[in-house]
């Protein structure tokens, strides 16, 4: 394994502070890793939301992780462009999210009109669900209710 893949794997395995079942690679927060001939490591991360309060702690975690693995010269940059979308979330991430009890964002083509696919209840898998509240316990979640089992559940917002 090359150095850069190794750093990407280590940094990518860092859990998200608000949804620790998922890694920052699963969420698509880890964007790029570069290393120059002098051994300086640059890591780019991107926020899911502009005001995401977890971002500072993710940045510290990445910095510490890379340093602890033998690369003391590291800079973690926060990049905004291209803007993060739920399309950046990996398939593994979607599965873990559902297992964690959060309905994953639906796969969608952003050139088409969204919201045609049902959001499935992560508890009973019914596709008869409705939105209860636009906003949930974190910036990236909304709250839905299942019409079949009656449970409420968080839904990772699509954008």
């Amino acid at each position: 394994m090359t150095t850069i893949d190794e750093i990407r794997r280590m940094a990518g395995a860092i859990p998200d502070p608000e949804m620790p079942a998922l890694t920052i690679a699963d969420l698509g927060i880890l964007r790029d890793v570069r290393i120059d001939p002098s051994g300086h490591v640059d890591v780019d991360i991107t926020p899911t939301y502009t005001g995401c309060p977890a971002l500072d702690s993710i940045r510290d975690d990445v910095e510490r992780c890379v340093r602890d693995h033998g690369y003391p010269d590291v800079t973690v940059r926060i990049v905004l462009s291209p803007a993060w979308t739920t399309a950046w979330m990996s398939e593994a991430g979607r599965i873990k999210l559902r297992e964690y009890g959060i309905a994953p964002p639906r796969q969608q083509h952003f050139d088409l009109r969204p919201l045609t696919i049902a959001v499935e209840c992560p508890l009973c898998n019914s596709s008869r669900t409705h939105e209860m509240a636009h906003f949930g316990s974190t910036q990236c979640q909304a709250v839905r209710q299942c019409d079949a089992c009656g449970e409420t559940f968080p839904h990772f917002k699509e954008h």
Partner: protein
Amino acid sequence: MTLVVAGAAAVYTLRIADDCLVLSHRLAQWSSWAPTLEDDVALTNIALDLLGQARVMYARTAELDGTGRSEDDYAFMRDEREFVNCLLVEQENGDFATTIVRQLLCSTYQLAQWQALTSSTDEQVAAIAGKAVKESAYHRDHATDWTLRLGDGTEESHRRMGSALAALWPFTAELFESDAVTRDAAGLGIGPDPDALRPAWDAYIKRALSDATLTVPETTWRPTGGRQGLHTEPFGYMLAEMQHLHRSFPGVTW
């Protein structure tokens, strides 16, 4: 406050940052006071989005004005006269209807502004706008839902929405004012001259109000001055509360 042409780009981004910060703080004041738990969460989430937008715009402003000031310097170390937010965002929360009307008017404006800023010649601003546009669209949806529910609701909710609209409408004129700063920024391709945002804003607001059985108030009063640092009375009190901790305990962290 004298605005120098050389700093037009920085003043332009500072105005946007101040709008976001002040509105964010107003919404945060709803924390634990909203009529339902869902809306307590919604209003504070919107506040958090706006705080994030303010932070990145302050960071960009510091690069443009060359002062190297921190986000905290802009938020906590300036006095009232140095803030260049519009008057609408600083108006008090009032009842829930007042906050919803302010949200409808502000988020519709901010969405149009971020949409235009996605094609800014300033790459950093364009990148920020690319994210913010999605957040503001969500804020506008929230405000529109409540406008419909309350406007076309009970007699009492309709009356309150009407009063809120009458109180806040005069402050919307300022949103679309052009001056040397906006004209220079537009000339440099940094962002739109505000009057270019008017048609889209008008069209959306008129449709939303009409769907909600509300009417656009007729008024000739057009308060202005926020962009020059001249604010309404409630703003000083808000700022005092917002800045007190940082100023009383310099360098405090938690």
